């Protein structure tokens, strides 16, 4: 089983048993495009012509996006399960750093959720950053408490990282 499919199955299982929500300069990720391409905003562009207002669709300004058709709500969904699904779809799309960003959003909402820590560890492993993956899994272990199933899963992950590094 590949790492990626392992992650998907793992995170889906974790999402299913996710706990209910609680309230609650580092390495730089550089994604496309590179910094040199930043000055495009504000240049004069030859544009096709004006559009009618009122369609409420995206404009590139101020970050606003207009009304979209949101996914049908799921009464059983929790913030964690929603974000776990987001992590998985970002991983599917190969957007690993976006997946990490979603995981971090999840940790802001529930820093004690070991499954999110493990997801982030998985993403770092997919990014070929085993040292960070190990630390994050250790952190997951700290939050796993007496959940023996989860502890075993985290331990298996740690063993796998260790094996990979050998």
């Amino acid at each position: 089983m590949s790492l990626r499919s392992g992650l998907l199955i793992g995170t889906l299982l974790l999402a299913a048993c996710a706990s209910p929500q609680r309230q609650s300069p580092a390495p730089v990720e550089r994604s496309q495009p590179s910094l040199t391409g930043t000055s495009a905003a504000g240049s004069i562009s030859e544009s096709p012509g004006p559009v009618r207002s009122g369609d409420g669709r995206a404009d590139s300004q101020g970050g606003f996006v207009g009304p979209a058709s949101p996914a049908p709500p799921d009464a059983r969904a929790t913030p964690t399960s929603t974000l776990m699904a987001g992590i998985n779809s970002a991983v599917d799309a190969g957007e690993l750093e976006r997946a990490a960003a979603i995981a971090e959003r999840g940790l802001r909402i529930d820093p004690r959720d070991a499954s999110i820590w493990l997801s982030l560890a998985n993403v770092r492993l997919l990014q070929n950053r085993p040292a960070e993956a190990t630390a994050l899994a250790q952190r997951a272990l700290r939050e796993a408490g007496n959940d023996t199933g989860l502890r075993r899963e985290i331990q298996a992950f740690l063993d796998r990282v260790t094996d990979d590094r050998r």
Partner: protein
Amino acid sequence: MSRLNTKLPSLRRLTVWTLLIATIVFVLWCVWIDRQIRESFSSLQWALPARIYARPMELYPGASHALDEVQTTLQQLGYREVSQLGRPGEFRRLGQSLQIQTRGFDFWDGPEPSQTLAVFFAGDRITSLERIGGGSVPLARLEPVEVTQFNPDTGEDRLPLALGDVPLVLIEAVIAVEDSRFYEHHGVDPKGIARAMLANIRAGGIVQGGSTLTQQLVKNLYLHRDQTFRRKIEEALMAVALDLRFSKNQILEAYLNEVYLGQDGNRAIHGFALGAQHYFSRPLTQLSLDELALLAGMPRGPSLYNPRRNPERAISRRNTVLARMVDAGYITEEQRTQASQAELAVTPRPAYRGNGYPAFMELVQQNLARDYDSAALRTEGLRIFTTLDLAMQTTLEARLDKAVAAVQRADSDNGPLEAAVVITDATNGDVRALAGGRRAGYTGFNRALNARRQIGSLVKPATYLAALESGAGDYSLATVLSDAKREIELDNGTYWSPSNYENRYFGDVYLFDALERSLNQATVDLGLKLGLPATIDMLRRLGYNGDVAAYPSLLLGAVDMTPIEVAQMYQTLASGGFRTPLRAVEAVMTGDGQRLQRYGLAIEQVASQRSMFLLEHALQGVFSRGTARTAQSTMQANLPLAGKTGTTNDLRDSWFAGYGDDLVAVVWLGHDNNGATGLTGATGALKVWSDIMSSLRIEPRTTAPPPDIEWRQVSQNAVRDPAYRQCQDSVLLPFAESRPPDRAVDCEDDGSLFNRVLDRFRVFSP
């Protein structure tokens, strides 16, 4: 006569030559203008300020947000309170619930759609979140509040928009009122000038201008505002050149983005997209006919027709625009009538800016300095997502000055007592609030980042953690240390004789007790047994990278740190031994929503969970039995918490660093001239810390013991001989299974099987 005859040809020749030279000069001027226009307009780039966002508010069932807190955030975002939701950017309060039509936002991790939500509250929590007409919503995120900008030198701000994204209605309104023959003329409109002159003569004053949009654009981009004849000619020639070389759409797009629409403090509002945000707190595409007409009428007199200051004039101007639109056939009479009756829907004040949070922004700039130079930050229109928690920062600023005033000694003659505070997220190192001085919005010396002072006893946890982590010595919380007065000979032959607070010495004491009560002699005893390198190494592991002098006085805090460096150290403790670099910036995007950098969460385990649990037991004891016990009444609802007081020689610096499950906070009090404050860590900084952190409802610290921890009763008194142990009133302490208490103090382990079985059923809490 003959003289006259000879004069005439020479005069004619002179005239001819003059005309010829004038023509050549004029042609050269035209060529030069043409070249200038071609080069400068085709490379036109707006200098765009960076927009700095606070962290967004998350809405979900169970989130600890009170209704008022959410409403405040909506108002900071420029949402309008209405009686019926109709458009994004509106909310409605209904008893203990809020209905919100969000605007949606492009975050680094993906877009948040615009949705219509009902949020229900009970006390300080959200109880449920529903989509109006569509069932429950697990999670939604409001747009982040734009707290400030890094502005270009011009002070101009704009949101450049491609023509394709501009509502046609706005374009029609602008053309109808400013330049109805825009698509027919060649940059200059003689007919328009004649018509304007006629209208002005009839009215006996200037009521109409003859400048085309192209001329106005040229004037705004390239010329001074003085009304000389030469400038008028230059303007006309440039307009013709512009019209000749560029398409009408390019000219129109530049005009719509360039036009000046008002002032917001030092910030000049340019372009209709930003105008829409500034006056209506909504994007241009979400404005109605009357609102677009109002904006279209403003370039003539941004101050005169400012809808906030001169609503009646603004309405009158808007209605003029609407009438012109009817004349031009863009709208019907019925549309005009309806739009003319619309009330002004401008937001009551510009979108929230607060005081700009200069201390926090200095940290943001420090964080970004590695990747962006200052010019890029001020001109490339970056969107910078910070970790600033606006509600927390507001609470900090609201309480700090008064809290400091309450502890300042009246007899102090060192000037005002100053302060610095750093509050971080205990999990991920996000800096959530920061004060560089006791006054809110203070722009001077940023003490949180730059005041380097001795940290006193705040250093002690490093030594104690080094002991618990040490492979040798079997250190535990019940290790017995000597708190006797001593003299230490230094390498240079001199002697160092530290003293305890109030010159009280306690003989043999437990390790946990020495930390809780911050006993100097016992700490020196421990630190010297371990060796100074052990403490220095632990400081490094906790995240301190600055200079450390390897003298024994280090053990009592003779090391200079800034408050933010202290926060980094305690962050590692609060993260359970995972060093987590502090960050004020999470991510950066371009102005048009492309992802640039992200400063992701990075952790590194630097101490075992077992040692961290033991250390934390003692740091919690600081509140329950030690130097911070005076805070018990203020923090009653929040205990247990972990923390440490710090005081420096002659009471120059008063420190407190502490943490709960969610937050870490460091408070420093002192004088800029390094004079005595008359305050200890407990009588000064701790009180300020308690005031702020109880207001922020810091969560109790509840760390579950790792699997290899066991609890055992030890003798009440710290003794080295079992003959003297007192077990009738013993103390329950956690121990690493591999390091049980010494037999001299152990009240339980007589080696019997019964006791070992009993251990299994012992209550797992102190």
